[in-house]
Each structure stands twice: as C-alpha cells, then as structure tokens.
C-alpha cells in the first residue's frame, strides 16, 4: 500500500565544500517534486548541503551480491593495474 502510493527514493546531497553528491539516505514520496521537498526537510535541516539529487530507487540497477565472486574477485591479483607499476621515464621526472 505504502509502496504503491509512495515509492522509495534515494537521496544524494552535495555538501558546502563537497565536489560530489553523496548518498545520504532514502525516503518515501509520491513524485519527484514531493521527494525533493521531503529530502530538503529530512536531510538538509542542519545545513548538510547545498545541492540535492533524488532518484527513484526502482531506477537504480545494483550489482547483485551473489555475483560478487565473478564480478570483483578477479581483480584481486592484478595489482599491476595500479598506475604505480609504470616506470616514469627520466625525461618526465622533475
């Protein structure tokens, strides 16, 4: 019932000095305009931010935990992918 009329929205807030929006929580609202107002009242009442994004939770496609082994484990033994492994040519050194 609640989910039918008031779907879930995820709220992202950018702080005064922040460069990116960070996930700060979620809320129920009937549409984007109501979600935006509720986000303002729920998550920025203590000056937490100066910009808000709201995204319908249904529109977020998340990776599935049961896929973690095939998704993320293969990266474990590939430390050479970090740029620290490249030798910087002499000419480029300051």
């Amino acid at each position, binding site marked *: 019932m*609640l989910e039918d009329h008031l779907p879930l929205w995820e709220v992202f807030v950018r702080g005064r000095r922040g460069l990116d929006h960070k996930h700060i929580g979620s*809320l129920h609202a009937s549409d984007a305009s109501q979600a935006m107002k509720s986000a303002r*009242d729920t998550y920025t009442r203590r000056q937490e931010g100066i910009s808000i994004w709201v995204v319908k939770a249904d529109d977020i496609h998340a990776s599935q935990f049961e896929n973690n082994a095939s998704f993320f484990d293969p990266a474990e033994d590939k430390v050479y992918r970090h740029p620290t492994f490249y030798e910087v040519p002499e000419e480029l050194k300051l």
Partner: protein
Amino acid sequence: MNKNHYRYVLRLGDNALILGQRMTEWCGHSPFLEEDIAMANCALDHIGRARLLLSYAGEIEGEGRSEDDLAFIRSDREFENFLLCELPIGDYAFTMARQYLLDTYHYHLFTGLISSTDVTLSAIAHKAIKETTYHMNRSRDWVLRLGDGTEESHGRIQIALERMWNYTDELFEVDSVDVEMAAEAIAPDPELLQSRWQADITATLKKATLVVPEKKWSLSGGRDGLHTEAMGYLLSEMQYLQRAYPGLSW
C-alpha cells in the same frame, strides 16, 4: 512607547506563535514520516519568528517583558492573533489549506515589510521571507495534490476551505493600528496585500479544481483579544509549565 507600534508587532508575533503551536500538534501524528519531519521543521520556523517578534514587542513596550513573559503569561484576551491561526488542526486537508492561506498572506506581508521604515522589522522580514517562500511552495503543492487528487481528498479540502473561509476577512481588516503603521510606512498597504493574496489564492484553487467558497458571514475579533473557544484549550496546553512552575527553565 507607541502603543500602536507595540500592538502591530505583537500581532505579528502572536500569529506566528499560535499558528506554530497548532502545527506542532502534528508532531508524531502526521500521515507519514517525511511529512511529520517537514511539518515540525516549518512549525519551528514559526516559533523562531515568534521569538524575534515578541522580543521586539517587549522592547517597544519598554516594561521589561521578555518573549517568554509575552508567550506564556498572558491570558487569551491579551492575545491579538487572527482567529484563523487558532482554529483546531482538523484533518490534514484542513491543516494544509489553512497553511496555504496564511503562507500566501505572510509571503506578501513580509515582501512588503522588507522595505519597512522600521529597520528591525525589515531585518526580521529578510529572514522570514526565505522560510515563507518555502512554506508557501510546500502548502500550495498540497492544495494542488489534494484538490486535484481523489474524490475523497478533493471533497475534504473543499469542505476545509468552506469551514475556514469566513475567517479570512479578518486578515485584511483595518483598524487604527493598521492606519498608523501604513501611514508611517512601517507596514505595507493592507488593500494591496488583499488584492495580491486574492489573486494567488483564486489562481491556485482553480488549478486545484477547487471552488472559491462563497462568503456567507464573517467572523473577526482576534486582533482585539476576542477569541474562539479553541483558544483557551490551546493556551492551557502551551502555557501549562510556566503557569504551574513560574520561571522554570531547562
């Protein structure tokens, strides 16, 4: 002391205090959690505004009364708020319709007060206009949602408007206080306030598929201390602690 100046500021403070007190009654009882937080937020904006205005009223009066003295140890006959502010909260349709009528009133009032010749009132208006702009957007949104919503929500908010409509003339009544304040450019012109208010309300109700109620009779008196029965109950709850334990602080 200029008695009319004192009463003008006191009335602004009383409207903020009594409406704010009514709004706090929803705390823990709103239709859903997000609304509960939003309503409490807006209520606190009103209480904060009441503190500034009542402190200033006490200053003008010059008899050493603080914001707390004015809020908690005056009797109903000494309060000069609009009757509309003190009416019981009713259902959520009634509450949001009243918020919208008063938010729109305050929006035009504070817009005018920004250029008041009274620098303190002008400073308070600068702060209040930002809060009020948000309040008005929020309550207008609810009027549109409920009016243009389901058969039940439409019916409820239409009835709510009809129940409160006869209290709206009081918002624009003019007595010697208003005449003097407008003449000294402390307060904006009441007629201009009324025409702007009416234009906004009519447009929103139309958009919300609601009918502007017919005015059958008109009740006022709040600004002279003559209140509805509901006011006594409101004050006894709001003032209980200071009446029972005078001077108590925490």
